[in-house]
Structures are given as structure tokens and as C-alpha cells.
């Protein structure tokens, strides 16, 4: 079981990877989304905010997210560090991504662009 601080650190690593990628920022310039990242085995909630291509992270949960990412703390930490792809936990049901299909594909694509295959 990962700790809340590990999930926070993984999200910071994800944010760093994202912000380094100018192409990705440009591509998401018109994709404003609020994403809730929630662990289902420990009390841990974070909010990712994508606004005009910039990604910021906040502790806690938003009121009306566009997308919800729910999984166990280990999977969340591994996934945001890019040690595992989101596809595998998604297909075996460990990872739940609630949102429109387009948003789900785009999130997966962002992860692919940051961490590679």
C-alpha cells in the first residue's frame, strides 16, 4: 500500500514530465479539464487542473470534476510515475476512469507522450 505522500510525489513527477513537453501543452491548450485522482484503499484525494495547456495539482477533491480516476494507492503511484501503463490496470478492472470516452483516450495519450510505451 502506497502512502498519500507517494501519490503526491508521483503526481509531481507527472506534472514535471507534462510541463517539460511543450508540444503536449500546445496540444492541450483548448482542453480544460478538472480531474479527481482518488485512492480507494487509503484516504487520498488530489485534483489535477488543466487550464489553457497548463497542469496544476491541488490536494483534496473538486466539487464537479470532468473525470474521476480511481484505483488503489499502489497502482496510482506506479502509474503516475510511468512505471506501468494505465492500460493494464484499466483492462483488469483495478483502475476506473469515469468520464467521456474521448477524455479517457486523451488521458492515456498524455501518459504515453510523457512516459513512452
Amino acid at each position, binding site marked *: 500500500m502506497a502512502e498519500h505522500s*507517494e501519490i503526491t*510525489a*508521483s503526481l509531481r*513527477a507527472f506534472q514535471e514530465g507534462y510541463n517539460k513537453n511543450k*508540444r503536449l501543452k500546445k*496540444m492541450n491548450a483548448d482542453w480544460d479539464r478538472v480531474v*479527481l485522482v482518488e485512492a480507494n484503499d487509503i484516504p487520498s484525494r488530489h485534483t489535477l487542473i488543466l487550464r489553457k495547456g497548463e497542469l496544476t495539482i491541488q490536494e483534496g*477533491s*473538486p*466539487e*464537479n*470534476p*470532468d*473525470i*474521476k480516476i480511481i484505483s488503489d494507492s499502489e497502482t496510482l*503511484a*506506479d502509474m503516475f*510515475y*510511468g*512505471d506501468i*501503463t494505465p*492500460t*493494464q490496470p*484499466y*483492462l*483488469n*478492472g483495478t483502475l*476506473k*476512469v*469515469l*468520464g*467521456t*470516452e*474521448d477524455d*479517457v*483516450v*486523451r488521458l*492515456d*495519450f498524455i501518459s*504515453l507522450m510523457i512516459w*513512452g*510505451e
Partner: protein
Amino acid sequence: MNLKKVLTLRTIVATSAGLTLATSTFVAAVQVAGFLTGNAAWLAILTSGLLCFLAAACFSELNGQLPSAAGIRLYFGRAFNDNLALVISLFYMVVIMGIVGAESFILARVLSYAVPAIPPLVWIIVMFVIAAWVNIRGVKIAGNFQDIITYGLMLSIILLAVLAFGKINFRLENLTVVGGPGNLIQAVALGVFLFVGFEWVTPLAEESTDTKLISKGMLIAVGLLSIVYALFTVAVTSTVPKEALGHSVIPHLLFAENLLGKTGVIWMTIICLGASITTFNAGLLSVSRFLYASAREHVLPTCLSKVSFKYFTPWAAILTIFFVGLAISIIVLITKRYLIFVNLAAAMESLIYVLAGLAVIKLRQKIPAAQRPYTIPGGLILPGLTVVVFAVLLATVLITDKIAGLCLAVGLFLSWIYVINGVPVLRERHRKKHPARRRRPVKVELEEQ
């Protein structure tokens, strides 16, 4: 903490029914009537619909327990094992491409009948190019537009049926003459094709906050479709002689022409276009997303996971389907054996319903304490009945159309060979190319810091 965008029950019903309503289902409905001596197709169709309620109940329980766009891949993987789930999912995608091929062939024949100057091949190419372009551009059928298309289509078909009943001074004659139980079972087995795809709405579970809405939507859609198809088939077989219908690829068009002349042809052509848009688009969308996800987990070649930088759509997967679908359509156009795909789809769908019933039973045994927003009442009776009923229907389809049976057996065998031998090779190749790396600091290091 609710999601901003959530689907309404109206749109869920429209999506489930819209995915199922297709030009090929009108042809299949008339084929159902062909098995029966009287005008009792409605009986077979309502029975098929009633049986699909069983399958819908199984999908509702599975979807409630495991709400995910991964659908059968996840349900069967959890209930049985990942290899079986992969074998079934891979071949199911091939069958969907076959349906898209048959659908485009029938629609092309309809359009050629309405506009004889343009040959069917041109229509097929035009349809595939438009569908691929729309999918690569990421243009989506909006919920409200889906509602208008589906409910408009259903109302339109009911109206045509009522007009037909009025014109022929409809009487309740021969409405229960089936010509023997064997004929009825054959008709019911093919009748399952009329509902192929109603469960494709389950991936929308992730766009809805209440999974119960998906279950309710599926059941309402199956009920509405049963009524629409039953009315339509009785109207067609009452208006046009059976001999003329049996050998035609466009029986629904003959019906409309018989009823309203040129206006009827135009009306039915619009209905067919509307019915095909949603099915065609859904087929391309679901298969392309499946190919993309499979390539991402190294089950299929990695090149299929390429995504457009501009539109965020899996263009390589879409183009692959474009070429495969086009090839299937041209084969169907040359051989005219579209019914093989219809029967193959009915058989595959029955097999999936059998496995869905078994998955419900298996998951209840494996994870009895799992959260289930919806549980099929009556213990194991209804899931068990689903398994038995659809196993019988599967056997019936395979006996009726031996070529479709052979295609199913060969397809599943090849899929199994691929999963056992091909997938490990792809995964090994990926492992060698991208050796395992760990960016996440191990806990010991964290504690030391």
C-alpha cells in the same frame, strides 16, 4: 463530487437501440419470417427479445459489478481467465467488422436501388471513406442527435407498419402458424441477430454516475426493439409476397415501394441511412478503440497504438479497420453471401450470452461479497437459463448454416492460436525493446531520506 457530464436514461435507451437498429437487421427480420409458414414472425421476434432480456439482465449485473469500457474483456477475464477473454474479444471484433461489411453491402444495394446511376461499389467506398474520415477527425454523434435518429426511426417504422395494416385491411390471420417447433427455434435463433449490439452501451457506464440507468436503458431498448421489429415484419410479410421477399437483399425497400411507390422508396432509404449511420459509426468506434487498447498492452502490434497529434484519435487502428472492412464488403459484393455474416454474428452473440450467464455464476462463486448495484433475482435460475437457452440457439444457428458454423470454429481456433503463440512473442519483443525501469523511489530510500 458528481461528474459534470452525465448521460440521461433517454440517451442510454437511444444509444442501445440505435446501435442495434441497422439496415441489415431489416433484412434479417424478413429472413426470420422465411422460416415460418404462417405470418408468425412477430412471435419469433418477441421470443428472441424476451430471451435477450435474460442476457440483458446478466450484462446488467456484470456491468454493475465491473463498470468499465473494457466490457466483456474484463467480465470474462475476471470470471474465467485473461486468455479466454482475449480469444473471445479478438474474434468478436472480427465478427463486428464482418457485420460492418455486410451492413455496408446491404446499404449500398439500397442506395443503388434508389439512385441506379451509381453502382454499389462506389457507395461502399464512399461510406467507408466518410466513416473513416469522421472517426479520424473525432467527430462524435451527440447525445441529442442520437435521440432524434433512434426515436425518429422507430416512430417512422411504426408509422409505415400502421399504414400497411390500413392499406391491406389487416386481419388477424395466420398470425400463430409457425409450421412446427423446429421452424420456430430456427427463427428465434436468427432473431437474436436483430438485437446484436444492445449491450455495446455498457462502455457508457463510465459516462453515467448511476450504473442502474445502463441496466434499465438496455431492458427498455430491447423491449422497444422487439415491438418495432415485430410490427415491421408482420407489415412486410402481409404486404409483399413471401416469394419476392425470400430472394431479395432489399425486402424492406420492396415493402416501402409496394406501400407508397416512389415516396416509399425515398422514405425507406432515409430510414436505412439513419439506421446505418449509428451502427456503422459504433462498429468503427468500438473496434478501433479495442485495437488501440490491445496494442497499448502489447496484445496486437504496437503500430496500431499510433494516435493523431491533432485529433487525439487512434488513426492507425481506424485505417486498419477501413481496409479490412472495405475488403470484407467487396468480398460480400462479389459473393453475395452476406447471410453468412448475419448467421455468424447471431452465433457469436449467442456464444457471448452463454459466457455472460456463466460469468455471472462464476463471479458470484469467486467473489460473493463483491458490491453489486444490481443482482438478478431468483439466485442461479435466470443466469443458468441464459446459458441453456443461448447454447440451444447457438447450436441451432450452427446446424442451420454450416458454413457460418465452420467460420466460427476456425475463427475461434485461429484467435486461440494467436493468443497462445503470437501474444507472448509481442510482449517479449516489447520487454527487450523497453527494459523495465523504475522511476518511483523504493520505500527504503524514502525512509532513509
